[in-house]
């Protein structure tokens, strides 16, 4: 099991057990973490599962794909650490991962 912490925009933290092989987005949905909409269900088609990866984890969550990059280019409040959480696969190497949620999705 891998632990992931989601921090809502208002500071509320949710530390949950993630199943390896699922995505960070699915982990949030399964654990009822508010603030991740994931309208398209993980098809990288909607940019409503936007998260900020904690600085300490930058680089460990992989690179943005070109599709993801393009979606983020036009999303709101994008920063250098922004990722679409449907594109980050949970592995043991991510045990302890911290991601922050934006004020709004889309």
């Amino acid at each position, binding site marked *: 099991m891998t632990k992931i912490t989601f921090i809502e925009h208002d500071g509320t933290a949710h530390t949950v057990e993630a199943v390896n092989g*699922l995505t960070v987005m*699915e982990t949030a*949905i*399964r*654990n*009822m973490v*508010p603030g991740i*909409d994931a*309208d*398209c*269900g993980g*098809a*990288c*088609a*909607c*940019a409503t599962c936007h998260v900020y990866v904690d600085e300490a984890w930058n680089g460990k969550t992989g690179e943005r794909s070109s*599709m993801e990059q*393009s*979606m983020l*280019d*036009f*999303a709101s409040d994008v920063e250098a650490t922004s990722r679409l959480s449907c594109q980050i696969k949970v592995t043991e190497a991510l045990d302890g991962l911290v991601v922050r949620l934006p004020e709004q999705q889309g």
Partner: protein
Amino acid sequence: MSTKAGTVIIGAGQAGLSCAAELRRRKYEGPVTLIGAEPALPYQRPPLSKAYLAGELPVERLWLKPEAFYPASDITCLTNARVTAIDREARQVVLADGARLAFENCVIATGGEARIPPIPGANLPGVDVLRTFAEADHLSAALEGAKSLAVIGAGYIGLEVAASARKRGLEVVVLEAAERPMARTASPILGGWFGAVHRGYGVDLRVSTPVAAILDKGGKAAGVRLADGEEIPTDTILLAAGLALNTGLAEAAGLECADGIIVDMACRTSDGDIYACGDVARFSSALYGRSVRLESVQNAIEQGKAVAAAILGEDVAYDPVPWFWSDQYELKLQIAGLIDGADMAVRRGDPEMGNFAVFHLKDSRIIACEAVNAAPEYMAAQKLIRSGKTVDPDALRNLDVAMRELLA
């Protein structure tokens, strides 16, 4: 706001669930009951014709919410429950087992079922359709061990299934009565291009080819007979002929319907306490200046949310920029807006390279964009459709001009 009757939502698909979840997110205090006719809790339909059918997505990844969500959110989700009537006089929804659920507000999110076209033999065993989870499992089982598949209808479902079946190694023939694939929703440029892609992957795609009958071999479907008399034997057959709307309850209740349940800007039917959302709802789009009905996940989610806001007394004017996506092979098609009414099409990028977009303009404003592996074009188009900004077609087709510059 708290009342005993609360909100009863008929239909536990993406729209119904979205409405229920949004009611709770907005702190609605009344009871919320979500009534689903299917055995499963709310699930994602899009993967049924894509990753799920291709065997790439296990069933537990289809659920829209975990089981614990419903009690945790105080949403009663009934499964295997069929509504037989909306009793407007009594303000009650009537279930097949005779139970009656009182409502203060009722939401009709009944969507539709796979349409069965009037082709002789369409009801034979061995003819599959695809709308529900159970139907996807049935189709998947039929494809297991089969060598060939005939798909009747080259819309999104038909083509996505064709692509998934090719991934599984089947011979696939797709038969379309119209003169191009995706004729109802996509432009000729895009439809023609997708047709060529499918042929490149070995699909025998035939347009302008009506099917006259399903071949009957000992009481079981065994292929198709075309209008010109040619017979194509196949192991499996999928009817992919669009959606038959579930408007029966609304019609029987005397609510105004015309290819969908007519709703106003706040998603109210002709009865002000009864709302409709999702595939089944027809609303007036201010953006497009006409009545529209959208069969898409986006519309299900957003209109479901709009209904929740309206129930809570917010001033709602539902008017989305429609968006839609389709995955076929390695291609991601994203469509923003509606194409009908355009007076000009502008292509950006080279289809030969596998990533390009077609913009549809009316009076120099973008009203729709079809993007193939071209997310910047798609994302920018969403914003430009909403803003109504005029664009220079030459800049639009010039790849040296970044899409971001066109937004400025």
